[in-house]
């Protein structure tokens, strides 16, 4: 293959030259084994009509019930969604929402009334939902430093946190980066009549994050001191591992419309209950036309209220059953004997020799 044979042409040893050629002539008979002869025992599945129809039928038979069950589960979920970003803007400010949200002197308090449409069993999950907020934007996703969050000695590590790395005088921000900086800061207080519904904000984040990603001995510092306030401020006396809102926020959402868990209410709600929500509408989504929604939802083993999975299973399952019948029909109309020599192309056109 290469030119190494030249060297070997006249010495008796190595190289691909003629000594090798002589050696080649004297190679031993290849050892026979099922492996070397490529004859390992093997299974040769063939799509016989029986198989095709059974596979389709089987898939259909499994998928349709799964679809039904999923659909029922999704239908069980009760969900109350309330969009409040527009409604909470005072009437005189609707033309200047940005001015409203940026003006710190205007009170951001706002009251919303929700009616429970169906009985809701506890725990009731409280989410806030943002629309059009690209938590997966490239410059946003990258703007964090995980080393800093885990080890107080590494507070100075702010690489990749631009444009929110340090304060103007060069002190490192902990936690640095756009993600932390833009922490959501609307708050909700729920009342049913006069009864206050306490929101349990414990355990809303992943345990793994609390234990390994955000350290107990790292405290916020220099946070939210810059020229532009992005969102919530953090209590610098609470370690990061206990700042669960931050931990939840920093698990960046996959899609531009997303929910984040705010807390849980461990009270059953009855149909037609009226719930008043006192909220602080602090977070600026007006600058990019984002929407804010408050969501109260129960949950099942399948998650939240989403019919899609159930329908998907029903469609695929139904399609498979249809295909099972269609193929059965085809096989009956146009049967072909398997492995029949007469179907070989040269036998079909005997002229073609």
């Amino acid at each position, binding site marked *: *293959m*290469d*030119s*190494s*044979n030249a060297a070997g*042409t*006249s*010495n008796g040893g190595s190289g691909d030259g003629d000594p090798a*050629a002589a050696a080649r002539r004297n*190679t*031993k*008979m*290849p*050892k*026979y084994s099922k492996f*070397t002869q*490529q004859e*390992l*025992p*093997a299974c*040769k599945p063939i799509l016989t*009509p029986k198989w*095709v129809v059974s596979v389709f039928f089987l898939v259909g038979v499994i998928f349709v019930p*799964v679809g039904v069950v999923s659909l029922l589960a999704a239908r069980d979920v009760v969900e109350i969604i309330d969009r409040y970003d527009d409604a909470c803007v005072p009437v005189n400010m609707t033309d200047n929402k940005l001015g409203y949200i940026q003006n710190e002197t205007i009170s951001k308090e706002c009251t919303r009334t929700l009616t429970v449409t169906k009985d809701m069993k506890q725990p009731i999950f409280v989410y806030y939902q943002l629309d059009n907020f*690209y938590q*997966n*934007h*490239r*410059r946003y996703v990258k703007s964090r430093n*995980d*080393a800093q969050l885990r080890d107080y000695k590494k507070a100075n590590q702010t690489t990749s946190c631009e*444009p*929110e*790395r340090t304060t*103007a005088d060069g002190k490192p921000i902990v936690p640095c980066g*756009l993600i932390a900086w*833009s922490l959501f800061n609307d708050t909700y207080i729920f009342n049913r009549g006069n009864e206050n519904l306490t929101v349990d904000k414990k355990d809303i984040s992943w345990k793994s*994050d609390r234990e390994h*990603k955000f350290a107990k001995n790292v405290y916020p510092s220099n946070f939210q001191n*810059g*020229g*532009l306030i*992005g969102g919530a401020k953090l209590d610098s006396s609470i370690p990061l591992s206990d700042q669960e809102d931050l931990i939840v926020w920093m*698990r960046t959402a*996959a*899609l531009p419309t997303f929910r*984040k868990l705010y807390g849980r209410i461990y009270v059953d709600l009855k149909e037609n209950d009226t719930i008043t929500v006192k909220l602080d509408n602090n977070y*600026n989504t007006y*600058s*990019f036309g984002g929407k804010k929604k408050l969501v109260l939802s129960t949950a099942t083993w399948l998650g939240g209220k989403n019919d*899609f*999975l159930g329908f*998907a*299973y029903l469609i695929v399952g139904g399609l498979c059953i249809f*295909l099972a019948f269609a193929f059965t029909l085809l096989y009956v109309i146009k049967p072909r004997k398997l*492995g029949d020599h007469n*179907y*070989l192309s040269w*036998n079909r056109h005997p*002229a073609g020799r």
Partner: protein
Amino acid sequence: MSSERPLLDATATTPPTPAAASRLPPSQPEPPVRADHLGFSVEVPDPFRRSRRDNRDQPPDLSASRRELQEGGDCESRAVVVGEPSAEFSGNAIRTAKYSALTFLPRNLFEQFRRLSYVYFLAITVLNQLPQVAVFGRGASVLPLAFVLFVTAVKDAYEDFRRHRSDRRENNRLAAVLAPQTASEFPPKKWKHIRVGDVVRVVSSETLPADMVLLATSDSTGVAHVQTVNLDGETNLKTRYAKQETQLRFSHNGGVGGILHCERPNRNIYGFQAYLEIDGKRVSLGPSNIVLRGCELKNTSWAIGVVVYAGKETKVMLNNSGPPSKRSRLETQLNRETVILSIMLIGMCTTASVLAGIWLLNHRGELEFTQFFREKDYTTGKNYNYYGVGMQIFITFLMAVIVYQVIIPISLYISMEMVRLGQAYFMGADKDLYDKSSRSKFQCRALNINEDLGQIKYVFSDKTGTLTENKMEFQCASIHGVDYSSGKDTRGYSVVVDDLLWTPKVAVRTDPQLFKLLRNGGTNVEGKLVLDFFLALAVCNTIVPLVVDTRDPRQKLIDYQGESPDEQALAYAAASYGIVLVERTSGYVVIDVLGDRQRFDILGLHEFDSDRKRMSVIVGCPDSTVKLYAKGADSSMFGITNKELDSVRATEAHLHKYSSLGLRTLVVGMRELSQPEYEEWQSAYENASTAVLGRGNLLRSVAVNIECNIHILGATGIEDKLQDGVPEAIESLRQAGMKVWILTGDKQETAISIGYSCKLLTNDMTQIVINNNSKESCKKSLEEAIATIKELRVTSTLDTLNPVLSSESAGVVLALIVDGNSLVYILETELQEELFKVATECSVVLCCRVAPLQKAGIVALIKNRTDDMTLAIGDGANDVSMIQMADVGIGISGQEGGQAVMASDFSMGQFRFLVPLLLVHGHWNYQRMGYMILYNFYKNATFVLVLFWYVLYTAFTLTTAISEWSSLLYTVLYTSLPTIVVGILDKDLSKSTLLAYPKLYGSGQRNEKYNLNLFVLNMVEALWQSLVVIYIPYFAYRQSTIDMSSLGDLWALASVIVVNMQLAMDIIRWNWIIHAFVWGTIAATAICLFVIDSIWFLPGYGAIYHLMGTGLFWLLLLIIVAAAMVPHFVIKAFTEHFRPSDIQIAREMEKFEALNQVNRSEIPMRTLS
């Protein structure tokens, strides 16, 4: 560079020097005129003109050697002073190693980056290093490229190390070199220190250190024998001569001197032109005076020569360019798909970047306060990483290129190489390709055209040594019009020399009647003729008898060494009848005539040449008569015969009979010369052989003058035995839709008879013979042939559907027989086109009397005009050009040894192995490789499309939810191994089925496993599957708390499972290895995801653990796989049942063998009809 194989009737070496030095002026006849640089030249197409198959590298040797032959004309280009080492020319040190320790890194990197795919890799990696564009972390992005470079570098370094070692060993060998200023001291000197002009002494069995002109040898007449097995693979001894002038000079005073003028170094190992100026005289030197580096001196106790070419300028080194690199058809075709994918890549990148630009424009005013964008860095007050919309579009484009680069599967090239390695291993390990008789294994010498073996349409085969065994066996003789062909008893005949018994090595079956006649001979006319006949066989040749010791001290073997196996066979035949050639020197031969040792002086010898097609020798007999013995082709011999009609006619009839039996025939003749005739000839011969200009022509005319009035003694028939299984193999190949062409140096009759005996020709074929001597007549017969074909077509195409197959279907089977002479007029002219037309209409083509370069020309004729794949198979040096020209070259490692094998892509022991090689391994390789390429395109496209759809939901910023490590590992680990294993191990049909139904081979010829339609189908499937993978989770997780890493993990795992399921559905034979790799890969992917999500500093920390804890994840995985696979399953189920391919039916036949056993008996008849 390519030797004419010894034609049937003569040899192509230089003869012994004319008799004793005293009688004839010492001089050498000109080098033999070879057919390949005689009357014609084959048009070797310019590599740049061959645009249609432009990726096939043109073997450089052909044109180069032709040029050099012409250049060889000026002998003045190198002057060597004998005995004075000159530093002017290249030294004798050789260097085959490419690198030194210092240059290794830069040169190796340079070599590696000459591959386009690596440059692409590098460009992407470099691009990724720009901070604005960086998509992957620096380490992660460099890793794949670094890995590939490293592995290749280690491999290269090891190979180079081996070359260094062998270089060193070679350079440090010792040779005896004449010390300057001394006359006869030869102190040892290292090879690398030998220089041009050095005088070197070599003893028997020693290897020659450089190309040397012989000055003197131990033989008083200056004869030396060399074995050239290292050079051209031929094991017989070749005779070389020292010039009488130098020989005498050396033996008188031991001194040498003179100036040698020789041509520049060139790679023609059969040509050499030079002259020596000595004592004011010019002594001309030819190829018979030079011995080449790498040869071994044999049967000569010592020889002294002057080095003329050293080191890298020696012929062996110049001939040492490895086999030309060829590229497989699939690899060439794959370029088209690569272009399509590049367009797709650019399209996707453009879409993403334009959309990103639009998004930025729409949100222009909002970017400052938008939390997830925040244009400004307030510590500096400047924009951070934002350069305006236009620039952002450009940057996004570059980033998109990095993210989507895998759509052009660079890893495919690495996978292909690994698959080929595995395929090569299995081909080599196949016991059906192992030749027990020569103990040779199948060898893959070129590792990059395995899959071409499955697409061959034309097979060009050499005859001698390929179809036949090249073991010539004397079968019968016709002497004076009497046929003696009943050879029965194998009686070894021995002669007694010095109380020792000398026995010829090979005994030939003798005809008892003839034997008796010879014993009683000498008395009657008939007996004398028979004696003369055998004397002619024993004398009129260039055989050198070698006496070999046997275990029995009183017995010795006579081994006839010569370049023509025909001559060997004849000499052994004569020996078996008791006319034993015992000794040959340059001036005389000693022949034991029925126990009586006689000396015959060789007064002159007229070489074989392709014009005369005969050779003759002038012999001074013991009874002091002078006789001319001649042997040659019948056509040439009958033209110079004297009129003895009866016996000649009988001989002619016998010749016809012999050649129709497939025997190689020779006519033997004799003429007694009278004293005046002899003297006239002698002076003419002397003049001619000392002529400086036109020596060859002069000698030829001397020969023509003396070769007349020949008395025909008789004819011989030599059998060239067919190899085992050749007819069956040819039948299989033809059934498989291949056209088998035989290209042979034999004459027409012999070629046709061999054609019949190997069932290539049958009696129901219409033969078209083109055998002309001028361009006009060639043109005429070609036109006639075309007219004939048209006529036949018109009558036959009426009832056939498929015009391509009409020639055979209508029962009109055409065979074309072309003669080498006609090819001279056809190949280099516009008649080529016509020949092509005729030849493609014929199902059998026989080319006889073709020269080596013509063979290549014929291959080129087909290769340049069709897209069909060509294969050339041969065993001899004369097949080298054809082997290199064809798409696939196969060397038979048989009798003729190395040269063809060296030039070939594959080598094996027997012609019949072609059947399992092509029908089984070729078929497998092609279908595996075709599938693997398509699958690689498909799987990478699926992944890239998954990445692409997500970008639509990230404000077009090219974020990947799938973690960067998973992105990189996708091609390296998640999906690569199963395709490689499947590419090596999966087989669509078993060996026995493929052999039983050769027509299944057609799938490769029709490009069924790799074509644009399949590519498009795969891309559509990739599109569908990527949509399923992306959108089912998208809708399921819409408005939920799903985070990027979790969704990314789901997408990654789902993509990997889907593409592996696709592979699993297409696998035909599941053995445990394939099971292990397919399912193991999916498991490995899951494990990798776990590992990646266990690294705390990555954003995805813990994601997969959470994800797998939810039921939704598992339900999603299930429905993604189901929904993604349904279309593929439907297409498969539908086509396999309602549009079954032959392969599919054959698979079913294999599987349901038992069911169909009943009606089996009638079936094979139909399939073979």
